């Protein structure tokens, strides 16, 4: 199963992806977390720690530096360059843009191609996308199973979420589940529902324990597993695995 996580910058895509991936792994599924951001930091939210996260190398960079002599399939590459972390989640970074560089930003290894090529993959792939719609636009018509749209109850965030939802529907890119993130009250949830009617919505409260974990560079699932916000993300994971119920 392939799960893509999309949304506005800072909406909580990486926080959400990390809890989803570890929830899947805990339920016994082989889980690959794909960091598809060119400014990758999923390792932090998964609980790899700062130093290890900063040292991770993208698959594209590994290819560039010629480390990969006889490159096999993408799946083999991920096997070679991925690293195992908490709960046995395997993490791979697709393509970091870590230095100012001239040239074309869109060639070489790309998340959308990688995902499209991964048909034979067993278990679950959780793909944490770059902010905005660039990657889902470039996905063309190649679907995933579930698209989690992370949306805060703000005008900017909902504007991006609405466009994402339209695009996924138009292209048939997958089942949409909206993660209404940082919800403070019923008004917040109503804001999300009114912009995104007829979609499955999971409400994730604004959670001080998540903010604290983020500041301390630890995984919320490790530092505050019982906090309401973390539990809501775990339930979102269970929902992703279950069959759709009507909204």
């Amino acid at each position, binding site marked *: 199963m392939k799960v893509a996580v999309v949304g506005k*910058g*800072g909406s909580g895509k990486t926080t959400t992806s990390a809890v989803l991936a570890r929830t899947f792994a805990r339920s016994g599924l082989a889980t690959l977390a794909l960091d598809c951001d060119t400014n990758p930091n999923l390792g932090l939210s998964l609980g790899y720690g700062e130093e290890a996260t900063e040292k991770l190398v993208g698959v594209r960079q590994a290819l560039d530096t010629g480390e990969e002599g006889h490159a096999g399939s993408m799946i083999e590459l991920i096997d070679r360059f991925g690293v195992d972390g908490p709960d046995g989640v395997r993490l791979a970074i697709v393509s970091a843009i870590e230095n100012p560089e001239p040239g074309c930003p869109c060639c070489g290894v790309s998340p959308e191609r990688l995902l499209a090529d991964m048909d034979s993959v067993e278990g679950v792939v959780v793909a944490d996308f770059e902010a905005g719609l660039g990657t889902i636009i470039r996905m063309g018509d190649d679907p995933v199973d579930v698209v989690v749209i992370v949306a805060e109850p*703000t005008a900017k965030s909902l504007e991006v979420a609405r*466009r994402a939802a339209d695009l996924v529907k138009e292209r048939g890119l997958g089942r949409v589940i909206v993660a209404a993130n940082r919800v403070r009250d019923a008004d917040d949830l109503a804001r999300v529902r009114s912009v995104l009617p007829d979609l499955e919505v999971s409400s994730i409260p604004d959670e001080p324990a998540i903010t604290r974990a983020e500041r301390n560079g630890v995984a919320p699932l490790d530092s505050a597993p019982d906090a309401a916000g973390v539990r809501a993300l775990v339930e979102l994971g269970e929902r992703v695995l279950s069959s759709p119920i009507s909204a």
Partner: protein
Amino acid sequence: MRVAFVGKGGAGKSSIAGTFARLLARRGERVLAIDSDPMPGLAFSLGVDRSDAGIPDVAIEECVIDGRNTFRLRSGLSAEEAVLRYADVGPDGVLLLQLGKARGVRGENAGSHQAFQHVVEGVPDHGWSIVGDLPAGTRQPFFGWGRFARTVVVVVEPTPASLLSGRRLARLAGMPSAPRLVAVASKTRGLGDAELVRDGTGLPVIGTVPFDTSVSDGDREGAALLDQTPKAPAVAAIDELVSTLINEEEQP
């Protein structure tokens, strides 16, 4: 003044850039705000009625530069004329030029994106102040979208993920004709946060914008901070940032 705001997703770039542009305009500058994010953001923070339009096709022509097919502004149309024609007029007289917002077609807007960069780099220095808001992360900054700026401000929250992004963006200093790179500490909650940003990015911290629920409350309503809560602490902090940058740009 020519300044560009960069940083991790959600760091507060658009909130700061929009408020900054208007406060600068209130001091009598002619301000062009530039939004190169293919997703809407800056228009909300400025309080400009949102539209998806970028530079229209009629203003663009194909051409060959260094053997590569590309696009530029139609000949006879200067960057300044393009701004006056295609920018929206916002509150406090700020002009907003935006990259056409993505509508979901692969490869669309290629011409408009090229032309956008030509305009941004072609606006004359004299008589204009430019305030740019770049999208999240390293992609656009590392591919030269902030070249118009003399000062690049990295907006950094006091969190490891935001600091890591800030460290990466600090590498812009290694570019030929590198801009001056500085940091602003965003959503700070305590006195040590500015130091955390300085030590974590290696950049001088020229300002601090405190965590302030007025900012996110305004965003919930879709209203600009400056219209919704003009007396908010975040507004005062951004006004101080305007003073600091004016003083710094006046020094040689």
